[in-house]
């Protein structure tokens, strides 16, 4: 059976169908989940997609973290299930405390929408299983608040535990230590600002996001095996 990836729709999400389509193109099943439901309906993996959940009011992710679905997402993560936050989804995971740190306004105060080169820095996570460390990928970013910020102690912990999953080759937004994505201690929760689903077909200009999404399907499938 195909791995089922649940994609959470918050009011203001806008990348959910792109993720569903990308998952489908790789042989998985993408299923939309409503933020107001307290259950994930038995999906194998969860993606919190990009967009502007709850209008980004107060701070990006600040209100989304209280959506009923988030307790189920936290339970899924605690049980070792794969959870991926892309862009706004990364912001939600940080606000929810499922990932450390915070996403601040970009240095330079510009909304950035362009391809960036990422370097895979850590393997064995929900997004980088089977990908060689050091691989460089061209994947679009699309954000105003993508400047990763954390306490020095948190940064030291992330570095020591090999939890910085992606770094920008040419830091576009002022992120601490060039961080583009991090993972949880269990390596099953991953957040990143770039959008792998927007690099999942030649028509989109790049297929460099495909290995990441395939890794998600592998880790999702392994759970049900």
């Amino acid at each position, binding site marked *: 059976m195909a791995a089922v990836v649940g994609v959470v729709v918050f009011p203001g999400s806008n990348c959910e169908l792109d993720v569903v389509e990308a998952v489908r193109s790789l042989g998985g099943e993408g299923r939309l989940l409503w933020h107001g439901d307290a259950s994930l309906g038995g999906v194998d993996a969860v993606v919190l997609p990009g967009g502007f959940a709850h209008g980004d009011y107060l701070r990006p992710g600040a209100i989304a973290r209280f959506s009923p679905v988030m307790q189920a997402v936290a339970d899924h993560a605690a049980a070792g299930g794969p959870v991926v936050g892309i862009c706004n989804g990364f912001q939600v995971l940080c*606000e929810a405390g499922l990932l450390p740190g915070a996403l*601040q306004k970009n240095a330079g105060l510009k909304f950035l929408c362009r391809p960036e080169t990422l370097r895979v820095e850590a393997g064995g996570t929900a997004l980088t299983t089977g990908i060689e460390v050091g691989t460089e990928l061209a994947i679009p970013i699309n954000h105003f608040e993508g400047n990763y910020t954390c*306490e020095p102690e948190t940064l030291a912990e992330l570095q020591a535990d090999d939890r910085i999953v992606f770094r920008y080759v040419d830091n576009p937004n002022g992120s601490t230590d060039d961080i583009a994505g991090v993972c949880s201690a269990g390596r099953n929760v991953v957040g990143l600002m770039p959008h792998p689903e927007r690099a999942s077909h030649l028509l989109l200009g790049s297929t460099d996001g495909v290995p990441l999404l395939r890794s998600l399907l592998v880790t999702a499938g392994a759970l049900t095996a």
Partner: protein
Amino acid sequence: MQFSVLVETRLRDGVADPEGATIERSLPALGFDGVSGVKVGKAFRFTIESADESSALAEVDDMCQRFLTNPVIEDASITVTALDGATA
């Protein structure tokens, strides 16, 4: 009792404030020289019903920790003022 509350949030010391820095750089162009240390934050104003001033403060502090600020990057200062004529 009813209390008027002012919560001001700002980025913690040591956290880069690109908005404040941009405003600071722009001021001399308008002839405002000698301005430094510009910090941009948010202000929240509301009233709250609470038994006394210390319980109002405790409640607002909890609100700041859990919702109004992201403690990773922001600090808050809280001002609580009893509203005249309010009774318990």
